[in-house]
């Protein structure tokens, strides 16, 4: 059985207090708790402070390009559905440059878990506005305050067909662990948007700010995450500042519905084509 040490690799370089430490810790603990072996997990990340997570995590990893963790992670899963695949990155990475992939990943339902460390700011590039920065937020690129409406990842995920949508907070480690575990066990595409404060460049959305405003829907009596319209309603009512497993549904995952679906990973299929089969392929063209 793997231990926490097996899921650690190299020391994380984030600023002290960065919300991303909790995400890494939660992920490591969940993997141990689920009895996963590090060689059977792949952590694919984008570019940003948050993107460094794949280097600090003890599983196989791919630290990809800015905005491209989802296509990479889906490629890995297409190749080997027997692996546990996690995609991770920042809000700029996932909802700015990579938002096209995000929408299509929701629709496609490849069985991966996508963790977005949403600090409402561009951290690595030192403090520009992000798609989730709140209206009026003054940043280096919005000196008069952000004029655009913030992007709403939870609602976007639901309307795009995501089969599991949740939100967690780096200040609530236990809840985050439970959510990540449920997301990883979910069959299909799961989004975990994590409020992961940037203590260096976001002085607005701090730990305190989140603590003060978050509504925990996991604890709300009668909240039914399979009720799509209620989920949309509650997310809107809380102005997206809520945590919990917000929406889930059972739907076939990509590796189950794809044409030519196989029981085991594509990587386990033989590359050799028998002479008879090869001849059959060529004979399609004989006239």
């Amino acid at each position, binding site marked *: 059985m793997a231990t926490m040490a097996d899921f650690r*690799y190299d020391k994380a370089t984030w600023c002290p207090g960065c919300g991303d430490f909790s995400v890494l810790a939660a992920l490591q603990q969940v993997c141990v708790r689920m009895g996963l072996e590090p060689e059977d997990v792949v952590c694919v990340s984008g570019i940003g402070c948050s993107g460094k997570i794949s280097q600090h995590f003890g599983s196989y990893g791919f630290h990809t390009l800015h905005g491209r963790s989802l*296509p*990479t992670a889906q*490629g890995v899963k297409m*190749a080997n559905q027997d692996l546990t695949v996690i995609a991770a990155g920042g809000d700029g990475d996932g909802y700015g440059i990579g938002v096209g992939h995000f*929408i299509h990943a929701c629709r496609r339902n490849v069985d991966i878990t996508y963790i977005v460390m949403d600090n409402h700011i561009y951290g690595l590039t030192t403090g520009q506005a992000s798609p989730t920065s709140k209206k009026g937020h003054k940043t280096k690129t919005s000196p008069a305050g952000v004029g655009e409406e913030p992007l709403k990842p939870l609602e976007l995920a639901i309307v795009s067909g995501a089969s599991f949508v949740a939100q967690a907070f780096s200040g609530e480690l236990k809840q985050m662990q439970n959510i990540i575990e449920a997301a990883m066990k979910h069959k299909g595409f799961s989004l975990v948007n994590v409020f992961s404060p940037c203590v260096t460049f976001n002085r607005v959305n701090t730990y305190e700010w989140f603590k003060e405003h978050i509504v925990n829907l996991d604890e709300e009596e009668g909240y039914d995450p399979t009720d799509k319209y209620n989920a949309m309603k509650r997310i809107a009512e809380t102005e997206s500042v809520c945590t919990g497993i917000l929406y889930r549904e059972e739907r076939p995952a990509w590796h189950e519905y794809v044409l030519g679906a196989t029981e085991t990973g594509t990587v386990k299929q033989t590359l050799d084509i028998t002479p008879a089969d090869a001849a059959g392929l060529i004979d399609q063209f004989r006239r």
Partner: protein
Amino acid sequence: MTTNEFTWKVGGAQGEGIDSTGEILATVLTRMGYYIFAYRHFMSLVKGGHTNYKIRASTDREVKYHGDTLEMLVAFDQTTIDENEDELVEGAVIIHDAKFQASTKRGGAVHLCAVPLSQFAKDLGNSIIKNMVAAGASSYMLGIDPSNFYEQIEAQFGKKGAELVNLNKNAFDQGYNYVKEHYGNLQKPVPVASKPEKARLLMSGNECIGLGATLAGCRILAAYPITPATEILYWVLANLPKFGGKVLQAEDEIAACIMAIGANFAGVRSMTSTSGPGLSLMMEALGMSGISETPLVIVDVQRGGPSTGLPTKTEQSDLYEALYGSHGETPRIVIAPTSIEDCFYQMINAFNLAERYQVPVIVLSDLLMGMNKRSFPDLDLSRVTIDRGEVVTQAQLDEMEKGAFKRYALTESGISPRSFPGMKNGRYCALTNEHEETGLEIEDVPMREAQMKKRFRKLSTLERDVNEWGVDYSGPDGAETILVGFGSTEAQIAEAMEQLGGATNVGHLQLRCLMPFPKDAVRPHLEKAQRVVVVDNNYTGQLAGLLCKEIGFHDKMDVLHKYNGNPFTVSEIVSHVKG
């Protein structure tokens, strides 16, 4: 054009069944034992616009190009005559639909034969069947026995019932008999071919790419539709799932390419196929494959650029992008198959090279080769080999100390064995940042330099090997004039060589591998030549530029450009050499 050959073309508005008419004749002729090349001319719209389908057939040798001239034209409309009459030889026949009053500026040099193609079809209650009427009319004019067409009609429609078979035969007969009765004197029987012992293949370059990839062990294709590459996606989708493979239509080419990288990382041979606009979107991913040392195969079926350019026309103008595209510097391999069937062999090659050298491989095809078909005897399956390159074994990993595996080890060859997710103790993080040997991000000077050198060192054995397979030469040693091309222009240059009378002072170099460049094989020919005629299907002379960079001899370069969307004709090349 020799006496053992003939040419035929059908044209009309897009959506009128021009392709299916051409396909029927192409199939019948191939089955009868003619070697053919079938060329499709079309536009980027679905209905309307002029389209045509040309066949050049030979009784005794393989045909790699559709020819400069035309002997028989079937015209569904006047536009077809206007667009194609210049190509007609003296005495050529135009069979046109009697529904319009045909005219030609060629006057008495050609014969106009009105045939009620649409009317017959209408009377039979099915307007689309005019293609069969046209086939019947062509059959008589070409002196081909109807039984050959009946056989094809039965093969094509037999499953759908006797009624449809009879309808088609009936339509065929009406066209045949009408021409026999009214224009019998114009019949020009074509040279007779003998049926081959083994049925021949009729394939396009795109089909060869799909088949080659499948036999090469490719098991994932992620792509986004684009002319002229979409047929690769279709063929692979229809066939790969039989072998446990998966095909995915991605949201864009960025995703398609990166999915293929992710899948290669996880151990599956994977590719993407596209054309110029898509290749542009893949540039950042190309570097990702390069620095993370993840194998990747990209097929680029080139079309006229820049930007949306000429989506349905041919060009070879992505060469520089393939060679130099993407920021920073990354080793890569660029292969240009030199014929339709070479597309098959080069896909086998591409997957082996990608995994052996852990680099991106770009296969440069083009519309001319990709979307057109030719018949040839067979493919040589003994040339199919699968070499997965250096992969660490589980036993080797078990022997290592925990976490000691160095994915980016600074080896002598520059190639460091790969591990795949699922292998115990083989953990690494593939990285697009510069990294040290285990894969941790670094910025220190000596390691950066060492890793750059390592990545470029990888290709050193290939730089030698490529002199053997990366270029073909035909002609005398020390030719005065050398014709140089890459990829699909092989066909027209080879034919131009023949027309130049096998001149003792002309040689032909056709490049198959452009990066690494087969310097040693090319240099001696250029050294001895006085004139280097570069047949460059683009405006800026990209191949000539590459030759100058790799070999030199700027002063000997004489570039023949073409960038109007059409492939080179043989006569253009011949007159340029002579001129």
